[in-house]
């Protein structure tokens, strides 16, 4: 995977996700960070070669639900996999994100194993 977008309002969580990607042996050449859905959409526009998105659900400005809804108007599930990374396992927000076109989800706190199994279908 050459370019991954991590969308989370917490800079701490963005760091933790990058660390766990390394621990899970998921090779990523380039990580782009965004702090909310608005920044995420802007990052996708200026980096059309992003191949995978990991997005938080609960964020200010634009949450993960509206972010997925927006990006699915231009990018299909096949063209751009989106994995929700959320504290709300099984909650209504996750179900809504899946209905709107998220490809999967992983719950916080996560382990290298849970990240690897969520991302395996989408990373070469």
């Amino acid at each position, binding site marked *: 995977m050459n370019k991954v977008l991590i969308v989370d*309002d*917490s*800079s*701490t*969580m963005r*760091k*933790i996700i990058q*660390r766990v990607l390394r621990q899970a042996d998921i090779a990523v050449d380039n990580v782009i960070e965004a702090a909310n859905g608005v920044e995420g959409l802007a990052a996708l526009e200026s980096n059309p070669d992003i191949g995978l998105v990991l997005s938080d659900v*609960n*964020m*200010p400005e634009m949450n993960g639900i509206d972010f997925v809804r927006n990006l699915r108007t231009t990018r299909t599930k096949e063209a751009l996999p989106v994995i929700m990374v*959320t*504290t*709300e*396992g*099984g*909650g*209504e*927000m996750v179900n809504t994100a899946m209905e709107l076109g998220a490809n999967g989800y992983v719950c*916080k*706190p996560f*382990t290298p194993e849970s990240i690897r199994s969520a991302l395996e279908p989408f990373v070469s």
Partner: protein
Amino acid sequence: MEDSLEDLSMQLSAAVDEITASMLPDAQFGGAAAAVDNPDTHRARIRFRGPLAGEVRLRCDPLAADSIARSLLMMGPSDPMSAEELRDALGEFTNLVSGAFKTRALDPRGTYTLSVPEWSPAEQPASGALQGAVGLAPAGGLARIEVWLDSAPARQESPGA
């Protein structure tokens, strides 16, 4: 809500256990949830809203704040950490605990939403009722995590209400 609110306290404790075991393996539980309330206390909170409304609060002294943040960020004791990094890490810790608490205690009771973390330099006015508190003693510091319910719990939300 027919079931006992006593559960909230136990479920907060279980949520804190879950998050500290996975994210802060070196933190030790304090015997009692000692009061943490000084001018240099760090505070963060997450609001929850649904059939019940309230908040999860974190308060910690500077030692505990530093320890929790460094554990989450995987920083060594002498690595430079900015005030913003510290603040963000404490907010995310509160967020993780709140998420685990929501899954255990709130989701079975209805549909709930969580706020993003809020920080306040001074104590929030105690407008509700304390339901439970958990003490942590990371690296010799003191932290306290509480769950509060608003004094007038929100009624079951209905369309247009």
